[in-house]
Each structure stands twice: as structure tokens, then as C-alpha cells.
């Protein structure tokens, strides 16, 4: 009897929640009439969040780069940020399309009469904000709260593991060999701090600065993290870099082939990315 009551209460709450009108990350007003059943996600981190909310089976297509969880690899692909396939998306008759706030895909889809919600997932805080927003949109608010709590618990575990370390290594993080690096206020920058590393880049330089190689040599980082193929050989071969402590001691962590997604996507697997950094900075 009590179960039935709870079930009815939940249904009633859902019925009250929809139609739901919300403001998306572009400041647009979006109205969702009923909990969406056919969703297209155009951002890998959003795909991950929707699936982590237990709504993976509602996704009918994703962008080209969504590759987690395993089952989304089999879904139809609707292009990327720069080359989306709006006709294909429309042909799928989705009742919700989740797009990046960058690009103008939402305009085309809106004109075609689709419900489009633009998402920003860039910072650490965006993970939780987006999870809760998606929870509301999908009628899965309780699941969203549970997921937020779970991610925070996992992150906390890694943070406390890092807190046991005696030292905080100086860290240089390279996202490509130009070289571009990350500032402390970027998503990766926050993860470096949580993993108890000290980023050699100051926040005045912005989120993703192109850095002078001699500055890195001068700062003499103890650990280097890189997220592109061939990074180890590339970094070792650079003029003057053989003097860098991380190069001398071999503490260069290269994360590619899916591991880099853990560090570049602000999504439900953030703690796994953090674990990579904690292991890299302080050993297992």
C-alpha cells in the first residue's frame, strides 16, 4: 500500500513538474511538455551524464565524439560541433536535443520545430549544475541528486588520498605540443589543485595559454602531464628540456586513448580523471 502511494506521489509530482519551462545556458527559454523519450545529445559529457542518470535508453543519437558508456558507440552519430547534421537530427523526431552553447545548431533545429536545450559544460561546478538541470529536464531529479552525491563522494575519496601525500609537486600540464597548457581556473586546473599538484601557470594567463618553453624550463616542474599521442618522445627531444626535473626523473604522465577524455570532459567520470592525476603526482 505504502509503495503504491509513493509511486502515485511520484507520478503526481511528475505531472505537476511538466510542462516544464526552464532557461538554458544561452539564456533561452525552453519548454518541455513531458519527460523526453527521444533525446539527441551533441556533447560527450552530456551523453555521459544522461546515461549516468539511467536514461541511456532514451538517447536516439549522439555527436561523433560520444564514446562512453560502451553502448552509445552503437548509436547513430549526428556530427560534431563544427559539422553537425541537422537534417538527420530532425529525421529522428527527437523530443529533446541537447546541444553545446557554442555554434548555431540550435537555431536550425528550433526552426524545424524541435525542443533544443543549450548546455555549457566547462568548469568543475558545471558538472553538478548540468547534472541537476538534466535531472529536471528528464524528470529524474532524485536520480540527479543521487548522482551528484555519488560524484562528490568519489571526488572526495581521491582528494583525501591526495591529502595524505607529504609533498605537492610542481606540475606542468600540456594539452598539445604547440605548446598549449592549462591555467588554474580551467577544469583541468581545478583537478590539478584537487590532486594536490601546484600548477606552474598563474591564473592571469587565462584558461588555455600558449606558453613560452623557456618559462617551463625556468619553473622546472617535477611532474609533466600530457594528453596527446607521442608526447613522451616529443617532450624529451625538445631543446633545453633535458634539464627539467620531470624529464630527468622520468615523471612524465601521458594520458591518451580514452584516458584523456576523463580529464577533458567535465562529466560524471571526473573522479576517474582525478585518480589518474593523484596516481601520477603521488604514486599509487
Amino acid at each position, binding site marked *: 500500500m505504502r509503495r503504491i502511494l509513493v509511486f502515485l506521489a511520484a507520478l503526481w509530482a511528475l505531472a505537476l513538474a511538466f510542462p516544464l519551462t526552464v532557461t538554458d545556458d544561452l539564456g533561452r527559454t525552453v519548454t518541455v511538455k513531458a519527460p523526453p523519450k527521444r533525446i539527441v545529445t551533441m556533447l560527450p559529457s552530456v551523453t555521459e551524464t544522461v546515461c549516468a542518470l539511467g536514461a541511456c535508453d532514451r538517447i536516439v543519437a549522439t555527436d561523433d*565524439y560520444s564514446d562512453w558508456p560502451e553502448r552509445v558507440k552503437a548509436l547513430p552519430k549526428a556530427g*560534431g*560541433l*563544427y*559539422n553537425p547534421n541537422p537534417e538527420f537530427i530532425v529525421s529522428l523526431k527527437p523530443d529533446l536535443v541537447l546541444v553545446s552553447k557554442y555554434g548555431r545548431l540550435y537555431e536550425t533545429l528550433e526552426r524545424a520545430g524541435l525542443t533544443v536545450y543549450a548546455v555549457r559544460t566547462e568548469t568543475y561546478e558545471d558538472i553538478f549544475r548540468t547534472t541537476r538541470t538534466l535531472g529536471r529536464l528528464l524528470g529524474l531529479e532524485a536520480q540527479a541528486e543521487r548522482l551528484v552525491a555519488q560524484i562528490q563522494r568519489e571526488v572526495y575519496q581521491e582528494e583525501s588520498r591526495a591529502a595524505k601525500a607529504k609533498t605537492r609537486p610542481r606540475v606542468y600540464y600540456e*594539452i*598539445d*605540443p*604547440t*605548446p*598549449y597548457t592549462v591555467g588554474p581556473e580551467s577544469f583541468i586546473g581545478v583537478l590539478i589543485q584537487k590532486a594536490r599538484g601546484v600548477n606552474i601557470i598563474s591564473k592571469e*594567463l*587565462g584558461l588555455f*595559454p*600558449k*606558453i*613560452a*618553453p*623557456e*618559462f617551463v*624550463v*625556468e619553473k622546472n616542474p617535477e611532474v609533466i602531464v600530457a594528453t*596527446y*599521442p*607521442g608526447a*613522451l*618522445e*616529443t617532450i*624529451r*627531444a*625538445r*631543446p*633545453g628540456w*633535458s*634539464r627539467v626535473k620531470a624529464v630527468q626523473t622520468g615523471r612524465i604522465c601521458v594520458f*591518451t*586513448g580514452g584516458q*584523456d577524455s576523463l580529464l577533458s570532459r567535465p562529466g560524471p567520470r571526473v573522479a576517474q580523471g582525478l585518480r589518474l592525476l593523484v596516481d601520477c603526482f603521488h604514486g599509487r
Partner: protein
Amino acid sequence: MTRALPLALRRSLVFFWLLLLLLLALVLGVAMGAVSLPPGEVLQSLLGLKENPIVTEMRLPRVLGGMLVGAALGVAGASFQGLFRNPLADPYLMGSAAGAAFAVTLLASLLGGLAPAFAQHAIFQSLPLSATLFGFLGALSATFLTLVLAGGAARTGELVLAGVVVGSVLTGATTYLMLQDADRVRAVFAYTLGNLAFMGWPSVKAMVLFFLLALPPLLLLGRVLNALQLGEEVARSMGLPLEGLKLLLLLAASLLVAAAVAQAGIIGFVGLITPHLLRRLLDEDYRLLLPASALGGAALLTLADLLARTLTRPAELPVGVVTTLLGGPFFLYLMWRRRGRA
């Protein structure tokens, strides 16, 4: 003012100022950088009294390498402008830049999928190195393709047309590849804006080698370029084996461009404006314009790179952005002043 001076003296003065500017660029380039070092320490490490890899392994080769790249672009720009008798010709006209960008993008997207296999291969030990090699092959292939499509170097108009088309097709292919692999767009994009960040002694040595190969024929061909300015018929009537000489000129200039693109990516404007800045001062005498463009291009690029790595230090600006943002307005100012005088 200089116009009133005797011809020989005026020309010597141009070279004197160019050498002075180059020396200034060298001194400033080595003395300044993202890291502040006292001049005494810089001097000591240059003399080998004190070890500082920032000076000897990073700044000095970067400055010297930048000079050679700038010189290559300057002399190639002057050669192409003379050869095509077109002041708009730039070193990348033969499709070399597009070819290099395409090859580097292709490599980057291959590395995305085949990274482990590539990384083990000795040639691909590092991305800058393999990008260099690929860029060089791309630039040379595109130049040859242009030559083949134009049916040799004989017809100048067809050569320009073929170069533009080859460039466009390759640029389209590059864009397509970049869209397939959005993760690597930043690195490839940076390459297309030029990058001297990792100029080491191996890069300098490579550039010196290409200069030894390509510069002597170019300097000797100044006389041919002078004759060409009077029209191909006139040049032919002077008994010059024009086809062969044009081909030699194209190959030598393309080799220099390919080497520059391979070492430093695609740096705009240096090769276009350097010959223009010097053209009037040297009365369009290509025997002098070619070496002067080499010196001018070297000084210009070294100073641009100095700004690129100090204006926002310790962050860097793409050097191609500096050459264009500073070179463009400066060039317009010169045009405006000349028109005012005319």
C-alpha cells in the same frame, strides 16, 4: 633624403642599415625572453663561462633559426615577385603552404588513430620532428604538382593559376581532415600561424643546409630576374635559356620555402612585404634586392618573434599573428606616405 646620394653610396647605406637592424635583432632576441636574465649572465653563458641552457639551447637557436626562416621567406618572396612580375606574389603562391598544412594535418589525424605504431618509428620520434618532415614533403609535392599542372615554368599566367588552385584544393582537404579530428585542431591551427617555439640546433643546421643548396643559384639569378622585368620576349632575345632558368629559380625558392614552412609553420606577410620595403631603395635591381630581402626578412621575423614571446610573457602569441598585425598597418602606412609624396 637618401635619394640625393650617389647610387652606390645609397645602396651601401641600405645594406649597412639592414645589417645593423639584424645585429640589433640578434642582441635583443638573445637578451630578452619569457624569463628575465641579467645581461651579464646571458653574456657569460654565450661565452661558455656559465651554463644556462635557456640561453644556449633555447634562445640562441630560436633567434638564429628564426633569422634563417625569415631570410628564406624574404628571398623567396622577392624571387617569386620578380619571376611572376607581380607585386602580390608571396612565397606560398606555388601551393607550398597549403601543401605543408595538409601534410601536417594528415600526420596529426593519422597519429590520432595510429599513435602507438607511429611513436615507435624512429623517424616519428617527436611531433615537431615528424611534422617538419611531413611539412617539407607536403610543400615540395604541392610545388611540383603546380609545376606539372602548369606544364612547366614557361607560362607565367598558368603557373599562378595552377598554384592558386592547388592551394585551394589542399586547403579544402585540410579543413575536411581537421573537422574529422576536432581534438587536434588547436595544434594544426597553431602550425598554420607559425611557431618558432622549438627551434633547436638541429633546426638551425637543417636551415643552413637548405640555404647552402638554394641561395647561390638564387643570388646568381638576380640578373635573369632583372631581364625578366623588361618582359619575357626581351629576356629571350638577350639569349637567356629562359625555361631552364625559370625552373631553377622556382625550385630553389620553393626549396627554401618548404624548409621554412617545415621548421616554423606558415608565417604570413614577411615574404610579401620585405621585398616591397626594399624595392624602391634598391631601384628594383634584383641582384641587390635578393640578398637585401634575405637580410630584411631575417631581421623582421626575429623582431616579430621577439614581440610574440615578450608582449604577453610568459605566454606567447602566434608569431604569424604578430607579423600580420604589425606588418599590415605598417605596410599601409608606407603606401599612404608614398601616395602623399607622389
